[in-house]
């Protein structure tokens, strides 16, 4: 091979500079995508950081809906949703379920009366190994429609120094700037903390798509509607009355809900969880959720499940709702933090009190 002609000193310098520049561009691009160069861009980590700022860090617990309890049972499908979704869970038959009831907020020791909202997360494990995970709340609409607005709501809710409570002026300013919260605010005005998990309905909030055997897509929302409707009164001074009530009910009999799937009409918004669909939309009773037993979340099977609502079987898909990818990303960040704490990995958080601003 011919020896190349020697390079001048300035030419060598320029070539080294070109190489350095090429490498630098890649590093900067990586830093940009990773969010390190844009400290104000919303990331999953910053969402979870804000949850921690509001409630404190409780090592090993979920960063939101930290207080809860595991439940086990099954779903008996009646086949009525099958024409709309080819997911195995909707074929007539039984699917095993591991679920979790919870209340909102990052404090696992909060009294059950601290919020009028209850949540139900479920993991259906189909016979073919695919899973359907869903996290539902006991309200028909979500306060905000975008991850950024949710982040701003959390910021407005951060406990203020020295009262330890959110600043009403900031909350007021947030709601004034976000008229989409009106439907949620109207609901919350009349909502009372229920005395039982078993008497609540739980809404998917986000829209999803069912995919049928022909590949046709159907926009849907779903909710779990309880068979139990007796409104017992909250258990006196016991701040954990929900667990006590659930244990007592399950000791007597399994608790049942009907999975009601609502089919959207063309034009119904699928990208806005603040808007309920009109009440005349077609409902399908897809089957019965039967919960048979409960376990504490510290030792139960639900502890290590990330109820990411975008983990879906073939036959269910996410819609264009912008909250869904944000939930997936933030739940993953929370799951990594709490499992790292469970594993006692170096650098993981110890339990701390909430930071007042």
């Amino acid at each position, binding site marked *: *091979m011919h020896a*190349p002609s020697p*390079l001048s000193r300035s030419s*060598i310098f320029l*070539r*080294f500079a*070109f*190489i350095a520049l*090429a*490498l630098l561009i*890649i*590093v900067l*691009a*990586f830093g940009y*995508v*990773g*969010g390190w160069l844009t400290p104000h861009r*919303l*990331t*999953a*980590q910053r*969402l979870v950081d804000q949850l921690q700022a509001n409630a404190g860090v409780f090592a090993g617990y979920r960063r939101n809906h930290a207080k809860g309890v595991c439940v086990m049972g099954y779903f008996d499908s009646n086949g009525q949703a099958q024409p709309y979704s080819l997911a195995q869970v909707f074929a007539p038959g039984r699917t095993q379920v591991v679920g979790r009831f919870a209340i909102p907020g990052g404090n696992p020791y909060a009294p059950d009366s601290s919020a009028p909202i209850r949540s139900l997360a479920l993991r259906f494990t189909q016979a*073919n*190994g*695919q*899973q359907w995970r869903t996290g539902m709340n006991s309200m028909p609409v979500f306060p905000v429609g975008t*991850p950024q607005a949710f982040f701003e709501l959390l910021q407005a809710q951060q406990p203020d120094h020295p009262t330890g409570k959110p600043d009403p002026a900031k909350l007021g300013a947030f709601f004034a700037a976000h008229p989409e919260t009106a439907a949620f605010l109207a609901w919350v005005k009349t909502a009372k903390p229920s005395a039982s998990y078993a008497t609540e309905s739980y809404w998917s909030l986000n829209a999803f798509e069912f*995919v049928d055997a022909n590949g046709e897509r159907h926009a849907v929302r779903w909710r779990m509607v309880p068979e139990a409707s007796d409104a017992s009164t909250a258990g006196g001074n016991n701040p954990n009355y929900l667990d006590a009530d659930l244990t007592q009910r399950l000791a007597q009999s399994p608790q049942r809900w009907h999975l009601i799937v609502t089919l959207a009409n063309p034009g119904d918004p699928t990208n806005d969880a603040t808007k309920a669909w009109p009440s005349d939309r077609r409902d399908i009773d897809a089957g019965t959720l039967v919960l048979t037993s409960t376990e504490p979340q510290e030792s139960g099977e639900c*502890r*290590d*499940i*990330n109820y990411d609502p*975008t*983990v879906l079987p*073939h036959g269910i*898909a*996410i819609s*264009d709702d*912008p909250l*869904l*990818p*944000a939930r*997936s*990303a*933030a739940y*993953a*960040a929370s*799951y*990594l933090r709490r*499992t*790292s704490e*469970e*594993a006692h*990995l170096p650098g993981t958080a110890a339990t701390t009190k909430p930071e007042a601003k």
Partner: protein
Amino acid sequence: MTRTSSQFVLTARVLHWLMALMIVSMLFIGVGLVTSVSERHAWLLAIHKPLGIAIFVLAVVRLIVRLRNPPPPLPADLPAIQKLAAYASHYLLYALMLTIPLVGWAMLSAGGYPVMLSHSLRLPPIFPVNATAFAVLRHAHAWLAALLLLTFLAHMGAALYHGLIRRDGVLSSMIGTRHELE
């Protein structure tokens, strides 16, 4: 035409550049999906898993191609320390190409996630469900990917150094423009 050892065989070159594109994309997809809360998160996640498995399969194929077709020798006048760095970084790149996808697969298995490559194609778990193992594997996945990024940068810097400064035929042996030695 007799085969020359002055450049990599065509299969090796095609695999190299194809995988270079896939792996660099993968590093950006990985860091993007972990941080992003936008709709990008969903499609990055959908690409990440099948692409990772594809990289693993191609890395196995490439290892076989390499064992059957020894690469051209490094220039005889290359300093020993640079030769050592070249061999070590190539071993490391192969190790990471094979390990990172497996760690990712094991990590999802340990987390109890179904390992879905598409809407309907599911891989079996390769690790028992265990939250502690999930956390360790999840961190390992990220740290190994960071190591892969650094190794890639060193590899690319060295390739450009060979191509632009030393001009010794090492870069053209992978581009395919290196001519016969004799």
